[in-house]
């Protein structure tokens, strides 16, 4: 029996491939227990929509308390941790001023008061989202109702979406979030270390027929609805009143509109 090393390796490889291949084929033939006719569907309470959108009416936000209530409603429901430093910070909805939220084309003659006027900012759930394009695993994806959702199970934490987002809407779990959540809410899971997260337009509440947490606590400051529904409040406001969006020149088609001049639609 004199074969050289190369022949030996070649024969060993062939036998291994044959063995593995046939074991796959044999297990494929074995009958698997199959539960017949299982189906999936939407809940009867689910609020269907083609394009969820939000109108922000800052005239309804009058005190610090108003902003805090809205942010806390979201962050406490969704177990958003408070790391107490801006480096690791995670935020889904927060307040920033006009000058920074609508950056670009700075008007130096604008009243200081206007420059510093506050605006709620959050993920814009764009129609043309650069973050979804960038994601290499489709862990962030666009749902049929227009919501840009995160699949925390699939995210590998590459943070490409954070680079792609022109609005700074996304946060990363640089640390394990659980020790930094003051009061755990069992309504929604926490996230784990190493994944990206952001506002999800409360799609889990929409599936139960409820409105988003921030909207519920906003005293009419945040109006939520389906843009594709001609009778919805958001559609009426957006088509008739003066609204602006952040960085419209980038073509991402944000779904969050900011009402200029206030409105008495309540």
């Amino acid at each position, binding site marked *: *029996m004199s074969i050289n090393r190369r022949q030996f390796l070649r024969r060993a490889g062939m036998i291994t491939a044959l063995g593995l291949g046939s074991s796959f084929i044999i297990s494929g033939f074995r009958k*698997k*227990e199959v*539960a*017949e*006719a*299982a*189906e*999936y*569907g*939407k*809940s*009867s309470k*689910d609020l269907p929509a083609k394009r969820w959108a939000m109108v922000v009416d800052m005239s309804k936000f009058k005190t610090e308390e108003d902003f805090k209530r809205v942010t806390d409603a979201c962050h406490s429901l969704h177990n958003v941790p408070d790391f107490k430093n801006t480096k690791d910070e995670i935020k889904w909805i927060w307040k920033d001023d006009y000058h920074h939220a609508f950056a670009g084309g700075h008007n130096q003659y604008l009243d200081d008061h206007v420059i510093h006027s506050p605006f709620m900012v959050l993920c814009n759930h764009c129609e043309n989202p650069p973050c979804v394009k960038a994601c290499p695993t489709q862990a962030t*994806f666009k*749902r*049929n*109702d227009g919501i840009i*959702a995160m*699949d*925390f*199970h699939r995210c590998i934490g590459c943070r490409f979406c954070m680079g792609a987002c022109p609005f700074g809407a996304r946060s990363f779990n640089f*640390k*394990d979030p*659980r*020790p930094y959540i003051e009061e*755990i809410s*069992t309504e929604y*899971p*926490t*996230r*784990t*270390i190493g994944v990206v997260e952001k506002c999800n337009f409360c*799609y889990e509440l929409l*599936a139960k027929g409820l409105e988003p947490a921030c909207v519920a606590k906003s005293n009419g400051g945040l109006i939520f609805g389906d843009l594709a529904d001609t009778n919805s409040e958001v559609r009426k406001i957006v088509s008739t009143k003066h609204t602006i969006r952040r960085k419209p020149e980038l073509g991402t088609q944000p779904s969050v509109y900011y009402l200029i001049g206030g409105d008495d639609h309540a």
Partner: protein
Amino acid sequence: MYKGGKIIASLIIFIGLLTLPFFYNMGKANAGPDVPLDTPAIQQLADKDKECVESPEYMRANHMQLLNDWRTAAVRDGQTVYVNSKGTEYEISLQDTCLKCHATDTAASPVVLNNPVSSNTGMSNPTLNSSNSSPQFCASCHDYSAVKPLCWSCHFEPKEAVK
């Protein structure tokens, strides 16, 4: 074969050592995992309602695939209702459906979330930290088979159990 005698002898000893566990346990029956099905929630159900989403045989073989499919349907497709092979509807929720029956018996072992004060390993990566451990029902099989489920770094057991 050069030094053939020594090589063949060592091969036989090696294969003997390798298969030792099989020979040692030949003929003995293994007890298998002790799966606790007597949680308070299950005990409260009427006998005819003591049914899981699918049959035990199916779940034993396929719960991983079912959980994956549920995840895809709920997270990615927005479909939160599952109609099983018998036509019963269930809400797709690990916490509210599966754990409604299979939650850990709280008196026996309360779930404690990872907290730096109580963590004795000093690490905070929840996938490595044992404080984010599986409910007893899951752990009974998963500890036996040494396959660690990673669900609990994010998902909870139902409200009663959480401190």
